[in-house]
């Protein structure tokens, strides 16, 4: 990888966009998957662009994530692609792609991953509110890139998953865009694969000196938030009744499953006839236990999803964002994931060469578990 620097002349957004355009213009990629601003201007939508003229309205710095790009990459590359596609992603999305490749739900061949430092994201309605109010949402966040903690706009908060995210810089990618550690109004640092650097005409330059400390300081603060949320989760879910209460308002809409980048089953078992119970069963259950909560199977659904997905959970928080009842699902997944992943010495998204724990057997694993 080569370090290089983009001059921004006060417009970092444009500097990044022109670099991305060059990828398409130079034929380095045949298509780009990037967020474009919607017609109303208050949001973005992921778009697969082959015609460079259609890049109008590109906005990769918008602090919002309506869907996880990993799901889109899965859809595009499931059976492999001939064209080369450049995809701009946050690190949580990149790590999800790594997991999906291992689970045969995406192919990395011909994929050019463009990783971006993430300044944090708002929920979609919050971001729309801010945009409609005319605030300089991106500028306000970029001001924190040189140092300090990225702060949300007054009266709004980042998504919970972002508040506890300690992995917000790209861990993979042929092209990595670094915002932290320097003043984006003057320059942006990039890390780029050797061959790509030559083709893009990028000159080697020194990396931003302050970057390491800036990133570490943010991660430290996020880790504190994370541990606080984990502690509160664990306090609330000491027993099965606690977990039942934690999830009590689940309406079994399955939105968390639909939006999870990892939950890959073509058809979830909870949507198959196995869970279409005979009508008389409800009366039987009510009779046996005195009462039965409806809809049924909500706790089983979440436990099953935890069981299947928690080793691969990358903490993107799309489950939270999708939940109409605002249940803190992501906190649960990350808190449980922290322990389970440690148990198998497995970090989801770390490497394509590490098989998922469920696919491996080691004689010495799970020691100390009763």
């Amino acid at each position, binding site marked *: 990888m080569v370090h290089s620097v983009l001059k921004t002349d006060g417009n970092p957004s444009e500097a990044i966009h022109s670099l991305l355009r060059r990828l398409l213009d130079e034929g380095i990629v045949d298509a780009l998957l990037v967020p474009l601003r919607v017609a109303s201007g208050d949001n973005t939508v992921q778009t697969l662009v082959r015609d460079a003229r259609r890049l109008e309205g590109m906005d990769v710095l918008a602090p919002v994530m309506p869907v996880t790009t990993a799901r889109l990459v899965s859809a595009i590359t499931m059976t492999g692609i001939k064209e080369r596609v450049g995809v701009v992603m946050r690190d949580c999305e990149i790590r999800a792609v790594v997991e999906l490749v291992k689970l045969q739900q995406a192919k990395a061949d011909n994929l050019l991953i463009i990783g971006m430092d993430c300044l944090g994201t708002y929920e979609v309605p919050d971001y729309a509110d801010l945009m409609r109010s005319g605030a300089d949402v991106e500028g306000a966040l970029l001001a924190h890139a040189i140092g300090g903690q990225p702060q949300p706009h007054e009266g709004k908060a980042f998504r919970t998953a972002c508040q506890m995210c300690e992995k917000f810089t790209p861990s993979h990618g042929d092209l990595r865009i670094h915002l932290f550690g320097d003043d984006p109004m003057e320059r942006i640092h990039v890390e780029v694969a050797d061959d790509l650097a030559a083709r893009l005409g990028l000159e080697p330059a020194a990396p931003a000196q302050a970057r390491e400390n800036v990133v570490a300081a943010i991660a430290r603060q996020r880790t504190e938030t994370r541990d606080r949320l984990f502690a509160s989760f664990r306090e609330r879910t000491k027993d099965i009744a606690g977990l039942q209460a934690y999830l009590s308002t689940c309406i079994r809409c399955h939105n968390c499953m639909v939006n999870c980048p990892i939950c890959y089953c*073509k058809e979830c078992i909870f949507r198959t*006839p196995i869970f279409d119970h005979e009508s008389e069963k409800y009366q039987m259950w009510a009779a046996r236990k005195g009462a039965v909560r409806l809809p049924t199977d909500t706790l089983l659904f979440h436990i099953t999803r935890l069981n299947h997905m928690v080793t691969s959970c990358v903490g993107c928080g799309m489950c939270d964002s999708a939940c109409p009842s605002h249940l803190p699902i992501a906190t649960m997944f990350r808190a449980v994931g922290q322990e389970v992943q440690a148990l198998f010495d497995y970090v989801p998204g770390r490497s394509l060469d590490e098989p998922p724990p469920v696919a491996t057997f080691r004689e010495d694993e799970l020691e100390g578990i009763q």
Partner: protein
Amino acid sequence: MADAAVDKRSNAVLIVGAGLSGMQSGLLLAQRGHPVYLVDEAPGIGGSLHLLDRTFPTDSCGLCISSPTNATYCPSIECSLHPNIAPLPLAELLALDGEPGHFRARIRRNPRYVNVERCTLCGDCAAVCPATRPHPHEGDLAPQKAIYAPPPRAVPNAYVIDMAACIRCGKCVEACPTEAINLDEQPTEETLEVGAVILSPGYAPFDARRKGEFGFGVLSNVVTSIQFERMASPPGSTRGKLVRPSDGKPPKRIAFIQCVGSRDQTVGREYCSSICCMYTAKQARAALESQPDAEITVFTMDIRTFGKGYERYWDGVQQEGIRFRRAMVSKAKQHPKTGHVALNYVGEAGGPKEEEFDLVVLAVGLESPQSARELAQRIGLDVNPYGFGETGEFAPVASNRSGIFIAGCYAEPKDIPDTVAEAAAAAAGAAQMLAPAPEKRPEAPTATVPPDAEPAIGVFICTCHGTVGQTVDVDALADYAASLPHVAAVGRAEDCCTEQGIASLSAWIKASGVNRLVFAGCSPRLCQTELAQALARAGLAEPLLQRANIREGCAWVHRDSPAQATEKAQDVVAMAAARAVHANPVKAQTAPVQEGVLVIGGGLAGMTAALTLANLGHPVTLVERETTLGGQLHNIGFTAQTPNPKAQAEALAQKVTSHERITVHLGATLASFSGTGGQFQAEVQKGDGERVPVSVGAVIVATGGREALVHEYRYGEDPRVLLQGDLSRVLAGGQESLAQSAFRDVRNLVMIQCAGSRDENRPYCSRICCTQAVKNAIRLKELKPDANVFILYRDIRTFGMHELLYRRARDLGVVFVRYALPDKPVVEPAADGLAVRVTDATLGEPVLLPADAVVLSTGIAPNPNADLAQLLGVPLDSDGFFQEQHPKMRPLNFMKPGGFLCGLAHGPHFVPETIVQAQGAAMRAAAYLSERQRRSKTTRVDVNKRLCSFCGLCVSACPYGARVMDYDERVARVLTDLCQGCGICAVTCPNKATQQYTFEHKALLAEVDAGALGL
């Protein structure tokens, strides 16, 4: 196949001796479709297997060998249930007339005095019997009545009277509720027409009383290894607890004395019994398990752990803190008050020693049973001076009388894997003497229940001879079961594991008209074959059976709380019934089976396997990498019995190449291999590059091995350092070739054993090298009596009859010097030749030996097998030899169905052992192919293509390679023939696109729900 219509020979076989060997032979022949008479003088079949608590080196139970396909594999039950096998207990072969293909066997059936069909094993007879005798099965450690039940899994399982102990008081006749006892029963005689006979009467333990110095029979705390085995066994006389016979206290200091009745001229037992070192290691481990603070000492001459995997087992046992003394015990005496036994022995460093123990175990050797010696005499068989059946080096299971074969310990003492191989080889020999079996035997009845029939569940409660009822309220359980949804009938019996129990269960199923069965009784791991048999007779498919464990899981574990045990039994039955509602009969898959067999390797093993199969009627394709057949037979010089093995190789090659059913490809390799057992497709690549496609049903790997090379002792640097193979080839040519060889003027020859083996590089023992060295030493002494031969060894492992060669070598003046690691001998140049510096481990002093030549025993190394293993999809073991399915019971099979192995590809072996394995592997392949044509698999999983996400977790999780990705259809497929039904893939599959038959998700959820665990 030969035309059965014109073949006048009998197609039946007689097997005398129904232990492991006889049962294995019988099962294989029965699978080929031959009627089998299984005769044993004991009241039941099973032989010595019933004695064993566990077996080395797997430490698995002696009775049942677990594997995923056969949850419990019990050869006695299999034999008893096989429709082609007629077990004849309490029977003797009186006379045998006729010739191969047309024998007439005169059989006497001795009375049992108890009617097997009527006996319910209630035990009322034994309770009133006043006559007792020592319990032979417990090694006389416990008393037994004159009327007694045989060991728990014996077949048939009914009481029997020992008339020698019976006083004919008639109390049992009165007490028997089913009038099963008849004290006046008389012996009967019958004549059987058979085409061949296999003798496998097994062994008798050496009578330890004959070694008076150990005091067995006089000193109460001196026991034999057989008594100890029973003591360590949970169903044994002390329920698995180690106790001192004198006071019932747990012994802390335990001594094992090896070679009691073996390697001992004073009792006329010069041979080595081969298995005692390993069984002692096993018993020492068992002792430590039951009593971790025990201090164990083993007195031994040599440690003989020469079998596959045994050296590692021994290392493991040694690391558990067991003390070995290389010393011969001269006397034992027991202190009358303390009960301690003091042993006198000569210590390693010399000088008499005395040490006290709480318990002394005598590792008794094996000998030929008296009844077998008499039988040999009656039917005109040659035996060796020790009474073991005589066979030839190149015909290792054939007796002197054509059509009569010998297998198991009756040929010489041997362990289970060698017995299993030899039993198969004897079956192969017998099968070639028989008229072909009928092409097809009638199919077992399959399901008669249409899958969409309204569930009518029968709940059948087996009270296991009343043991369940001692805790669980069986009446309440039956009433509850009757109240469950879809339950149409409730039945009861107390002995579904017996022949009459099976009959009554199947009759009940038919009479009650149920289409699903819940069997409430013992653990589902037990009695699978019996219940399958009952279901088949009733026309109910196996998947329509659900098991409810009310014995171990309820009655036994909750012995102290009967109310809760009953409640739990009700829940367990309700769960099984809920699941039974969703049970579906599985259609068995049938597929055409190829008759042909591919044999890879054209050495002794490959040629023998090919000839055996061809003689059994199978077309064979033989592939040999070299341009000539014969393999190592060209390199071994001479053997103990055969001066010119090369000539044997040529004769064998002539038979192979001229056989009409064998196609030989020389200078050829296997280029591709695919398919499953019964239908493999392969391509043979010939020397000219041409690829010949071959379709076969089975494959036998006989790719051999070779004399190992080493990089020590100056081998390769100094021309005077050579290998045993070099010496053997020179000696094979007698005086003439000796005179022209490097050994011409040798005055001092030093042999070094274990060169490059039994160390960190090759941690296994090569089994043959001690005998090879001794054999070469003897021949050299014969040709050049003035030469001095020194053999530097760690343990001399001339097991079995090879021990006689060791004895002869010592008589001829060969000098044996023991060394011990880490002090290896050092070969160095000297003024007039070489010198070998070695620390004599017995004296503890350095010795310098002059040497004109040094000969290294390097053992056998595997060929580079990795590519072939990968192509065939079979594993190698950690030493690079091919890995068999199970080291005890399946030494010649791969886990992959239709795959077999033999010879040096399996591990180091002597010539006769290689032939035995090759004939055995051929027989197993032949039996497999005929079984495959008759039966198909129902254990399997299926994939719902609509649900499969193609994530591949099942593929990585499957331990048998039975799951594969189909990239065209994007679905993870199941290779049914490789599937062992373990269910790991079904568990791993996140949305249950993979479903295991009889474990469907819907059924499991219903079961869980019925167990009141619903969330």
